[in-house]
């Protein structure tokens, strides 16, 4: 048989496959889904991945990631040691204890194998990015960031003959007596049913669904910006809950940071974040300060500011710095508002001038005489007799020009998801798992994360549980 007819035979086999049934159907197209498909393919050739986004938007929120947190023995490669125990302590430190300690331990233990596995599937690495040295020991950077990682994984899928459909709008899961039978897609106005022996749901959270967020946040959600893909509207999460999957995690909890208020509603990613907060003060729309801007070093505190701003009136705040510190942080994408007097700056930011000037003057009185600061550490250069205080890096804001940057809550992802067991099977409200429904990634990260966030841990969860769910789904299908 010539190469040509072989190719034709393969193609017709593929068409036949889509028409009938797959061993494993993966719903989603980000890191967890890709890892699941790759792991499933090791056990069965019959794997279908359904990505809702068009090809150029494929990869969910993984497109915007840049590193993955992995425990390391500190040998075999250039990395230093990052013990499993230390990793777990770090997690407990930020979250106050994972929802399911066993799953958290599993994720951390498994994370040691990830770099090798990822390299095998085409991921390239680079040194820690400049300015992220605090993560150099704990996190690994993939070359080119998340979209390059996503591209490498899709290439691997294609090499391994895994079927992929883009623009695949899965609207429902057909589940009978606790057993998955098929997925339903919308093809224009027509419904399409694809049957499968097992399903891995790795379709993300619901952070891009403003209406859903409104159930917990009210109209404030209208002012949230979504940093990632607009496709994470939680359809699959809602369907699973409707099919009696057990819900886990605080529905109001999300990972959110301060982003520039002028950023796009969706998909602004990394570049809209602002690192100016510790270098000045932050005022709300009434021109008043509301939180200690110098509480701790920025890498440990940046993640609380999304929620802090979400709780302010109008969900907006303004970071104010002066000529002394404007060059101390990563250059922002949008030009800061700039004025030669505080009154003029208040005008540009549409703040009530008297209150705003009063706030800054009070701050300046409380910091009088502070002239040197050391951004790299807690320097104890603080306010005196001011509430709320600024505990470090508190220099008066007195050298024109003055700068203002509007801040909004930028949601990275939501924590509420479905509960899973140690095989990544989704658990029903009765407490029994579905026999062949698996979940991985953001949709089940609430089993581990309750609040707070560890940089690069989302990808760890996605990779570990993606691989587990893919493997388990494929072996179930083979039974």
């Amino acid at each position, binding site marked *: 048989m010539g190469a040509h007819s072989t190719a034709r035979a393969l193609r017709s086999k593929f068409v036949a496959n889509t028409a009938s049934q797959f061993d494993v159907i993966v719903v989603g197209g980000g890191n967890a889904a890709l890892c699941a498909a790759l792991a499933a393919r090791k056990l069965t050739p019959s794997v279908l991945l359904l990505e809702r986004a068009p090809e150029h938007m494929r990869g969910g929120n993984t497109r915007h990631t840049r590193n993955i947190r992995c425990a390391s023995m500190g040998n075999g490669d250039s990395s230093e040691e990052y013990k499993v125990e230390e990793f777990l302590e770090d997690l407990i430190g930020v979250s106050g204890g994972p929802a399911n300690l066993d799953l958290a331990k599993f994720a951390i233990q498994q994370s040691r194998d990830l770099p090798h596995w990822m390299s095998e599937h085409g991921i390239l690495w680079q*040194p820690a*990015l*400049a*300015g992220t040295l605090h993560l150099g020991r704990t996190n690994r950077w993939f070359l*080119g960031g*998340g*979209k390059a990682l996503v591209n490498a994984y899709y*290439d691997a899928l294609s090499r391994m003959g895994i079927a992929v459909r883009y623009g695949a709008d899965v609207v429902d899961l057909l589940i009978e007596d606790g057993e998955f039978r098929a997925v339903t897609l919308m093809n224009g106005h027509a419904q399409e049913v694809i049957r499968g022996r097992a399903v891995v749901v790795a379709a993300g959270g619901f952070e891009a669904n403003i209406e859903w967020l409104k159930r917990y946040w009210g109209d404030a959600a209208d002012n949230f910006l979504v940093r990632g893909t607009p496709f994470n509207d939680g359809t699959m999460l809602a369907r699973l809950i409707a099919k009696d999957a057990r819900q886990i995690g605080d529905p109001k909890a999300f990972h959110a940071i301060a982003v520039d208020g002028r950023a796009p509603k969706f998909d602004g990613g990394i570049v809209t974040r602002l*690192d100016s907060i510790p*270098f000045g003060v932050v005022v709300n729309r009434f021109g008043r300060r509301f939180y200690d801007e110098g509480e701790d070093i920025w890498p440990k505190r940046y993640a609380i500011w999304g929620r802090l701003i979400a709780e302010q009136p109008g969900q907006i705040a303004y970071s104010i710095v002066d000529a002394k510190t404007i060059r101390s942080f990563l250059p922002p994408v949008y030009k800061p508002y700039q004025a030669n007097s505080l009154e003029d700056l208040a005008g540009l930011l549409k703040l009530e001038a008297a209150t705003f000037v009063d706030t800054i003057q009070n701050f300046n009185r409380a910091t009088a005489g502070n002239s040197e600061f050391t951004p790299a550490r807690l320097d104890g250069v603080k306010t005196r007799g001011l509430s709320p205080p600024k505990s470090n890096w508190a220099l008066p804001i007195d050298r024109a020009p003055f700068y203002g940057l509007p801040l909004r809550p930028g949601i990275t992802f939501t924590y509420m998801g479905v509960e899973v067991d140690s095989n990544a099977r989704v658990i029903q409200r009765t407490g029994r798992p579905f026999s062949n429904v698996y979940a991985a990634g953001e949709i089940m990260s609430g089993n581990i994360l309750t609040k707070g966030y560890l940089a690069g841990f989302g990808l760890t969860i996605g990779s570990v549980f993606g691989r587990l769910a893919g493997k388990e789904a494929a072996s179930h299908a083979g039974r």
Partner: protein
Amino acid sequence: MPGDDLVEEASRQLTICNACRYCEGYCPVFPAIEVRREFGKGDVFLLANLCHDCRACYYACMYSPPHEFAVNLPQIMSEVRLESYKAWSWPSFLAGSFRDIGKDIILASLSIGLIIALALTPVVPVRLFAVHLGPGSFYAVVPFLAMLLPALGLTLYGSAVWMIGGVRFWKDTEGELPPIGFRVLAQTAADILNLTWLRGGGRGCYYPKAHASQTRRLYHSLVYYGFLSAAVSTSLAAIYQDILHKLPPYSLTSAPVLFGSIGGVAIIVGVAGLVVLKATSDPKPAHSPSLGLDYLFLIILGLTALSGMFTLLFRESSAMGLILTLHLGLVAALFITVPYGKLVHALYRSLAILRHHLEQSQPHRNGQGH
């Protein structure tokens, strides 16, 4: 896009890159972005010439069109490069050929025509079509001085224009830099000789489509080293003639013919490879006027090499006179377009690499916030 708007648009995109930095591991453009906060004309020009158009960043970018941020660094860097070539060239009416390729084509055609006319007029056609053998047979077709003087003149002229360009490059990209030391020179030479940054992030350039391969670096190396080999051949021939007093043509196993043949074949293969690679490459990160300039240079270079090889093959036949004349015409076209064509990238990219290593050899001026 006119100059100022172009610099502004490049600056907008570079500001986004500077806030992202995911591409830091791909090439020297990103570390160079990170030591800056603003991007003026000099910065943009420098970065554009540091960019080797490997396109790794385009495929890795989550902000590439249709995202509203519309970041397409390879494309804007290509357009800025053309603008910088124009700005640094001389005189201005010829420099315009960088943004108007028609001028370049006219220039090249005129020089080919001129050489052919020169060869024909003083020469009785009988001489052109006769079979010439033995030492000095080429000069029986085109007298030695008629070959040497235009070539020498064009070389001197081209060098002068390049020198002006080099000085203008250095002035435009000015900054506080340490003196050039041995280490920086060694790094620069290594990068230039290795075509280091055609490695992209390590796996090569993303040509013709979204997958990295070493193909572009291979073909470029063939053209590059083929060109050097041909230059060695010419120099050796000069030594043979003027010092050893041996007139061409030389035997097939002589050093000038060997270097010339190896160079010629390498150029032909490399040029063909690059043309195919460009023609089949993804148009989205490309800047089509830049491609036009690439093609023009590659085609003239390829035809020059091809006609050189034909001169060798048919040097003992009656076709030699015509082929040699055509070859010399193409050489003239190549020379005349050197200061106004794609070859200037060799100058500016080398200077940009040197400038970059100097900049990186000093402690960073603009540290980040954390």
